[in-house]
Each structure stands twice: as structure tokens, then as C-alpha cells.
């Protein structure tokens, strides 16, 4: 990890496109360091999901990738990496557990920093940096966690946090004179005043607000469905597609082995239809009706209940009896049922 004389120092950083990672990159660029940004696509980004449900008339600028935007603004290359199956396995069984919701923040940091270290080894680089701020987040950004993350990633000494460096032990890039410690920052805590002042000084105004607000894993509603899923199914058997479906519709667990997803509008109907596959699909034909997808194997009685819930969310909810069509591949069944009472629904809702 010693650069050739005359070669510019190259830093590999995690760039979400939020203010902190953008500032961290900018601090290093100010010191004449080459910066390459890595942006992980995890499958749990709310912005990515918004694209999948976007109306045709929606302005695509509102759904842009913030990592790419930050790279263009900073003039640094951004590699977008698919975190893929390995990330899903980590999320379902995080070594360091979950935060308040389904957020495995420590394991997530380790996963991404590991990825950055691998990238550095494969493509060349002298150290890794992140926009982490000491004390900003309770689970992953206290002193002990920052040190442990570095140790577990196997790049001890070669992980720089430019925004909080002056509060942290000297890193190898500082010791070796690649980076001037005096020009790194001493930010700590949850206040973002210093970051805002720096963004103003450097003319960085086009960034998303607030940080950490775009991850499904840190969302209370998603977390409830996520934990229900992993407690009813073996985590190793859960597929990416099932995680995608947790983001859409109303979810009801109506039996230990049966869960249903009821679309909330036309765009969710269209979305769910793409994932029908070998699942049962319920709907009321010839009127405004949600598509209901079923996970699991419902028996006769359970299928009547699913029909009744589907009827409740259709335009015929006020009628005493509604005919609901259930299909699964070549199978078709017509069930005439009363729409379920709202009070009963709450016992099953996730």
C-alpha cells in the first residue's frame, strides 16, 4: 500500500450522494487526492422503489440517483455496484443485529467498506474513506463501533473518516503524509450545522434531505412486515422478490403460513401483476378492484376469507355479497362472499 513516487494518491469512498459523503469527498479533493466513489444499490432504497411505481407523467429528475448526481457535481467517477444476493443474506441474518427497525447498520457499513476494500485491491487505491461522523448515529457511529467496523473490514489504519478525523486516532494516510490531518475536520454529534456551513462555503446545495431517510430497512412499516416474514419463513429460503413485495400494498397475515398483499391503487395493481408467478391472484372483475396476491397455500376456508378481504377493498364493498375471482395458473374459482368488516381486518394487518 505504498504508492509509486510521483503518482497521485487515490482514495476509494462510499458515496450515497447525501451531504456527509459529498463533503468527505470534497475535503479530500481539496488536498489534491484522486477520488473514486462507490455507490451500492442495495434493493432497499425508497427512491429506487419510487421509480418502479412512477406515473408516466412524473418528472424523472425527482427520482434521480443521488450518488451519480454527487459524482457529476464533484467531478469524480462513481461506480454503481449491485450489492445483490450477498447483501440480502446479510440483511436477513446480521451478525451485529438490528437497530430500532430492520436496520442492520453496523453490518451494512461492514458490507460496504469490505466492498470498497475489495474494489481498492482490484482496481488500485491507497485508502478507503466514508462520510461517517462520530456520534451522529446511535448504532453505527459511536467510537467503539467505528473502530470495530474498521477492524472487521481488515483495513485497519487505512479507513479514513475525513469529517471526524481530528477526533479519531491518526490513520495511516495521515501518518504517511498522504493526507494533511490539519486540513481534515473535527465534526461530531447529531447537529448538522458545520456540514451546512461547509456546503454553503463550497456551493453544494443540491443534495437530498435528510440523511438516512431513504432506506426501507429504517422504516417502521416495512420493518414490521420484514420481521413477520423472517419469523414465519426460514431466512435462508427468502428470495429477493419476496423482499420487493414487502414494499407494496396492504399486508395481512391471515394464517401462520398464509399472507396476502392487497394493492392500494392502479400502479400497485400493475406492480403486483408482474410478480404473480405461481401465486393465487384474487380480484373482483368488472369493477374497480385491487389485485390480491397470496403467499402460501390457503385452504378452502382461507380462500373465502381472502375473497372477502378483496371484496372489502373493491368498489362493491357496500354490497351484501360480492363475486370474487381467484386464479392460479390454469385454476379458476369464483367465490361469492360478504365483504369483511373493518374491525376484523385489524387483527391480521401487518
Amino acid at each position: 500500500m505504498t504508492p509509486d513516487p510521483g503518482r497521485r494518491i487515490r482514495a476509494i469512498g462510499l458515496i450515497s450522494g447525501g451531504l456527509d459523503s459529498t463533503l468527505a469527498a470534497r475535503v479530500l479533493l481539496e488536498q489534491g487526492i484522486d477520488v473514486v466513489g462507490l455507490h451500492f444499490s442495495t434493493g432497499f432504497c425508497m427512491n429506487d422503489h419510487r421509480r418502479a411505481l412512477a406515473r408516466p407523467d412524473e418528472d424523472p429528475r425527482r427520482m434521480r440517483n443521488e450518488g451519480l448526481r454527487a459524482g457529476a457535481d464533484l467531478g469524480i467517477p462513481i461506480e454503481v455496484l449491485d450489492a445483490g444476493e450477498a447483501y440480502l443474506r446479510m440483511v436477513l441474518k446480521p451478525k451485529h443485529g438490528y437497530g430500532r427497525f430492520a436496520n442492520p447498520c453496523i453490518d451494512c457499513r461492514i458490507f460496504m467498506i469490505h466492498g470498497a476494500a475489495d474494489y481498492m485491491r482490484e482496481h488500485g487505491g491507497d485508502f478507503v474513506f466514508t462520510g461517517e461522523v462520530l456520534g451522529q448515529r446511535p448504532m453505527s457511529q459511536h467510537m467503539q463501533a467505528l473502530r470495530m467496523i474498521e477492524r472487521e473490514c481488515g483495513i485497519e489504519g487505512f479507513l479514513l473518516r475525513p469529517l471526524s478525523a481530528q477526533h479519531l486516532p491518526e490513520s495511516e494516510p495521515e501518518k504517511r503524509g498522504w493526507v494533511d490531518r490539519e486540513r481534515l475536520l473535527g465534526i461530531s454529534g447529531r447537529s448538522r450545522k458545520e456540514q451546512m456551513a461547509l456546503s454553503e462555503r463550497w456551493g453544494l446545495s443540491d443534495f437530498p434531505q435528510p440523511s438516512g431517510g431513504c432506506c426501507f430497512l429504517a422504516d417502521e412499516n416495512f420493518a414490521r412486515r420484514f420481521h413477520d416474514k423472517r419469523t414465519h419463513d426460514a431466512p435462508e429460503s427468502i428470495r429477493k422478490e419476496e423482499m420487493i413485495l414487502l414494499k407494496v400494498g396492504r399486508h395481512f397475515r391471515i394464517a401462520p403460513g398464509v399472507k396476502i398483499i392487497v394493492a392500494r391503487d392502479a400502479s400497485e395493481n400493475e406492480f403486483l401483476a408482474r410478480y404473480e408467478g405461481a401465486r393465487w391472484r384474487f380480484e373482483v372483475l368488472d369493477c374497480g378492484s385491487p389485485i390480491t396476491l397470496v403467499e402460501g397455500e390457503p385452504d378452502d376456508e382461507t380462500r373465502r376469507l381472502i375473497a372477502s378481504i378483496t371484496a372489502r377493498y373493491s368498489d362493491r364493498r357496500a354490497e351484501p355479497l360480492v363475486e370474487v375471482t381467484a386464479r392460479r395458473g390454469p385454476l379458476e374459482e369464483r367465490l361469492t362472499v360478504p365483504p369483511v368488516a373493518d374491525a376484523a381486518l385489524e387483527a391480521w394487518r401487518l
Partner: protein
Amino acid sequence: MHGLDLSPGAVSPDTERADRVIDTTGLYCPVPIVRTGEAIRGMRTGERLEILSDDRVILIDLPAWCRAHGHLYEGAREEDGVWRLRVVKAERTAR
């Protein structure tokens, strides 16, 4: 169309042959960008890549990706709901 500026170029991408074409229809950004990065890594400087996509967000993300990497974004045009976008690989892809 949201006042999107598809220049430089708004070129007719058919006037020059693409050296490689990738079809990312059905995939949402940033996946088409991931595929673009993978494809362009295996190409030579000056070669032209054509990307097919039905996600309009690529009209924002691909020019940003090109600006960040120094590749030349030539423009895009739509045919039956599918965007055809063209990129010419630059000599240097990092600062």
C-alpha cells in the same frame, strides 16, 4: 416532456453504428447504469455503446454518470416507449 434537455447532440443515434448494444428494458435505474458500467469496461476508447431502456430516469442518471466518468453522452431518442441512448467511451475514466 418536463423540459428535459437531451442535448448535447439530440443526435440521431442511427447515423453512426454502435459497437455494442445492451438491452436493459424492464430494469429500473440504477441497474441499467450498473450494466452500462460493466459493458463499457470491456470496450475500447472511442467505441460507441447503445443502451436500450424503458426507465425514463436513465435520461437523468446516464448523463450524470457520463459527466462523472468523462465519457461522451451523445443523446437519446424514444421509439415505442423504449429509449435508445448512446455513449462514446473516453480515454480516461478517472481523474
